[in-house]
């Protein structure tokens, strides 16, 4: 394993699999995100190198395929597969998860007397999520870990729109960007696509208990936009009954 090198950037998040830093690429004014998979000392060294390299490479490939085929996700700038490091495009904006939390806070705040307007915007966002996932599935990419934290809201055109000021972000002008393809794969099977949606449904309903209506908008939008949606949604019914593991492996 290549020795780790100090990373020039600020640590944003640290998960089980990777550390994420904010930094700059090539020029001081081009922000980027560095995702690095550190060595796991409890794993056998050879296995560790293989796994780190494999995951890093497969994530970079998926990101690149996804972005160049026209589904929004961070672009890949640089890959150092020996160190398990990917430098990618910086996406400015809150995750859908944070966005919904802010919204829920605002909605329970009695001083806000414009819930309807927010509702319309929120519906537009859900519509957009369905469309984006539909596109992803139409190019036969399975995300593998669709959760509200892995969906970002990026406002179009106005990069200086403040991320925390969620209700003022005009959602009609924002894009949904998919991040974290660490568990992704290329597959055209409707089973995989249905499981993808099922994972999102579980994540959605468990983090936002009142969100059944919102998830239905996503499914509805997926149904209308995704070309292969009919088979996938039929399969989703089956998956709901039995859970996500069909093959009983792993």
């Amino acid at each position, binding site marked *: 394993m290549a020795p780790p090198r100090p990373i020039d950037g600020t640590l944003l998040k640290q998960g089980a699999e990777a550390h994420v830093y904010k930094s700059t690429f090539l*020029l001081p004014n081009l922000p980027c995100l560095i995702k690095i998979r550190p060595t796991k000392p409890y794993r056998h060294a050879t296995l560790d190198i293989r796994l780190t390299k494999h995951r890093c490479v497969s994530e970079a*490939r998926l990101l690149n395929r996804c*972005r160049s085929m026209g589904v929004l996700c961070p672009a890949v700038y640089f*890959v150092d597969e020996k160190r398990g490091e990917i430098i990618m495009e910086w996406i400015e904006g809150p995750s859908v998860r944070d966005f919904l939390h802010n919204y829920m806070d605002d909605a329970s705040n009695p001083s806000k007397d414009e819930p309807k307007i927010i509702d319309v915007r929120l519906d537009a966002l859900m519509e957009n999520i369905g469309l984006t996932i539909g596109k992803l599935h139409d190019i036969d990419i399975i995300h593998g870990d669709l959760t509200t934290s892995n969906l970002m809201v990026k406002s179009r055109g106005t990069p200086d729109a403040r991320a925390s000021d969620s209700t003022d972000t005009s959602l009609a002008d924002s894009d949904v960007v998919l991040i974290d393809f660490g568990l992704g794969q290329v597959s055209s099977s409707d089973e995989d696509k249905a499981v993808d949606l099922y994972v999102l449904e579980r994540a959605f309903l468990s983090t936002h208990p009142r969100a059944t209506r919102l998830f239905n908008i996503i499914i509805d939008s997926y149904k209308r936009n995704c070309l292969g949606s009919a088979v996938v949604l039929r399969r989703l019914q089956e998956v709901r009954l039995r859970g996500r593991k069909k093959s009983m492996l792993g």
Partner: protein
Amino acid sequence: MPTTLSVPHLPSSYRLHIALFTSVTNAAHLHSQLLAKNSEYEYAFIEPSILVSHLQPISAGFRAIHDLLDPDVGLRTPNVHSETVFSLSPTHNITDSYRRFGISPSSTSVLAIKILDTSLASYSESSTLERLAAIVEGTEVDFDTKEIRKLTDLTKVKKYYKLKDMGYVDQLYKKKGRAIEEKSEDEVWRDLEVAVLGAMALRGLV
């Protein structure tokens, strides 16, 4: 004026000296000196028609220096300048990369890059820049995306970087008779830019 810059994540003593020329008259001479391995002419001479933005050559330089300094990787070509040209390529074929992304005897515009470790005693910024401005006979223009895009040959870029799948989803939906939002010119260039950077970054991984 040539541009001098150091790049984040690399030792700051390594600097790229970059200059863009149009109406170049001595491309054949420069090309022959490269073939003769004349060390006086050790520069990365890049064909600008395959560039879509100023990030692209800087990214190639970044990769070349990165690989030079990484003992586990190392250079795959004779020096850091040829490595810069090779780093523009999405494939492993070195000869092809020189032919496609490097200068040819018939080139009329040239992007020249000199990479130097400025911590060496022999380094002098003024003489490096002077030499860079003099080595190519042509009109120097600003090294920026605007000037580069005047020279871009999109057919070549799409062919060399294998970008036929670009915007596949929109084309698919269009074929099904769905209304597709037209992208602005800036968005189209940005998509192209990141697709090219991605293809370079994934060299050898695909």
